[in-house]
């Protein structure tokens, strides 16, 4: 094998380039649409029922003069999910700050706590009511799942919160929060990026954001060009996946009807007795699963190198 072919990079060989290409395509969709939106193009977003409930929930809490409780999920460290949740909570806190409504934000993770503390303080400052901000309203509770659950339920019951927001990564504890809040009649808006927890939120909460409605939330609430543009980019990508599925399914359906006498394993074609075509013989399957031929490349050995296992003798 000529060296020029060898050096294209392991991950690009055979159909390996396809995955990289798709990733870059999605990134391009997002970035292009952010540009479009920044350029002043007005982009449409459909109504999302759960999000209209946010204002209603805070309104009710203000009427009752009771706190609003927020939990940005149980992420192990700070990630986009937690950031997105805190961003939505910044919107909630802004309204709460205007009406001088007390808030409580319970964090599972110290990094999320740091981020939330900074963000929420900023919100109060930019509203010009920095004196209303109590740093203890954003608090770290525990970073053990069920201790956190016990702590937050205790808080919900003692503070008699009027509205609760559970947005982010939730696992088994989702139902503990939701039912506890339900038992004191709090209005609840919830969402979990873990699909397996969504049914429990549906059963126990007033409004539920399903799946990536959660990611759409900040764009929907604020209409910031960057967010709206990114949302449109995501939609383009979704549409692309839909088309790929429809096209691929039809292609596979017809390809698989035939028979084959050759087979490709580890990137090498070989003749075999005639048999029915299998899924792995189809064009799409070959495109998705790169098959790498074994290539030997000779390189000089590092003189300082001590092979594993020999050192211990």
């Amino acid at each position, binding site marked *: 094998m000529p060296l020029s072919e060898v050096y294209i990079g392991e991950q690009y060989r055979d159909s390996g380039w396809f*995955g*990289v290409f*798709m990733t870059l395509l*999605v990134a391009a969709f997002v970035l292009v649409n952010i540009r479009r939106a920044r350029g002043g193009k007005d*982009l*449409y*977003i*459909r109504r999302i029922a759960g999000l209209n409930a946010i204002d209603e929930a805070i309104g009710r809490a203000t009427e009752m003069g009771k706190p609003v409780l927020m939990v940005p999920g149980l992420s192990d460290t*700070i*990630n*986009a999910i937690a*950031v997105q949740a805190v961003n939505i909570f910044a919107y909630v806190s802004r309204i709460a700050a205007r009406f001088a409504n007390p808030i409580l934000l319970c964090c599972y993770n110290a*990094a999320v706590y*740091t981020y939330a*503390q*900074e963000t929420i*303080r900023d919100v109060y400052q930019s509203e010009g009511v920095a004196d209303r901000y109590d740093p203890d309203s954003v608090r770290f509770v*525990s970073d*053990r799942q*069920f*201790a*956190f659950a*016990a*702590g937050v339920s*205790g808080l919900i*019951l*003692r503070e008699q919160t009027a509205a609760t927001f559970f947005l982010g990564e939730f696992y088994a504890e989702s139902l503990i929060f939701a039912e*506890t809040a339900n038992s004191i009649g709090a209005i609840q808006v919830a969402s979990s990026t873990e*699909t*397996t927890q*969504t*049914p429990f939120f549906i*059963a126990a909460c007033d409004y539920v954001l399903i*799946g*990536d*409605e959660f990611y*759409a939330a900040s764009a929907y609430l604020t209409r910031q060009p960057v967010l*709206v543009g990114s*949302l*449109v980019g995501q*939609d383009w990508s*979704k549409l692309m*996946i*839909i088309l*790929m*599925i429809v096209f*691929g*399914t039809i292609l*596979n*359906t*017809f390809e*698989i*009807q035939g028979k084959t006498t050759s087979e490709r394993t580890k990137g090498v074609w070989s003749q075999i007795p005639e048999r*029915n075509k299998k899924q792995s013989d*189809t064009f*799409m399957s070959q495109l*998705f*699963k790169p098959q790498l031929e074994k290539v030997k490349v000779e390189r000089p050995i590092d003189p300082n190198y001590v092979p594993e296992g020999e*050192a*211990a003798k």
Partner: protein
Amino acid sequence: MRITAGVIATIGLYSVLWKENKFYRFFEHVFLGLAAGWTMVALWTETLKANWWDKMVGTPAETGAAATNGMFAYALLIPFGLMGYFVFSKKHNWISRIPIGIILGLWSGQQVQVWWNTYGPQIDATLKPILPTTWDSLIVPSTNGLTPEQLSQVQSQIYFSQAVNNFLFTLTVVSVLSYFLFSFEVKSKAVKGINTMGRYLLMIGFGAIFGSTVMMRFTLLIDRMHFIWIEWLRDGVFPMISGR
């Protein structure tokens, strides 16, 4: 005594089901305290010691293990960690964004790296043939007592029932996905229909998830009850009282 403490703590936490009370509050705070304490212990013994300290200062040679060198650059992480503590400063709180920015940057970069690894194979697995390759039988015939050749022959065919299931599967994925399109104004009735169907199909999925989860949750409750009644009361307290 250890078991008794466990039982009392369990009952204490259960008491919240009745209403919030002092007993629950006591155990809630014990729980939070122990958890925080344990986190402090595990932070060093399980995370920082092996992943940071040992790498920074190296380890000495021991029987059967060679020494490792220390990489002093790890010390740079201390000031970066300290930057987080500026969050309480009114003037310099922006500095706390640096460590957070690093963590977020690392996370984001990884998303780019893993996206296709995670979802590519799933897209591939969705591309199932939706027309049967044989009409010999509408459903998969029984495989009882077939020779291996006959079996592989049966397995290489797509039967009508499988094709229907595959169609339903693909339809569910596509309609659910189209339900989550936010930025297209839907006017056509057909697309609206698909979106509504997407929502209904989602509900079947959610129902099934709910059902599967119930088993686990109940099992854990049964385990607690076993712990209280059998392990503690029957095998622990009872023999003690009856002096056996």
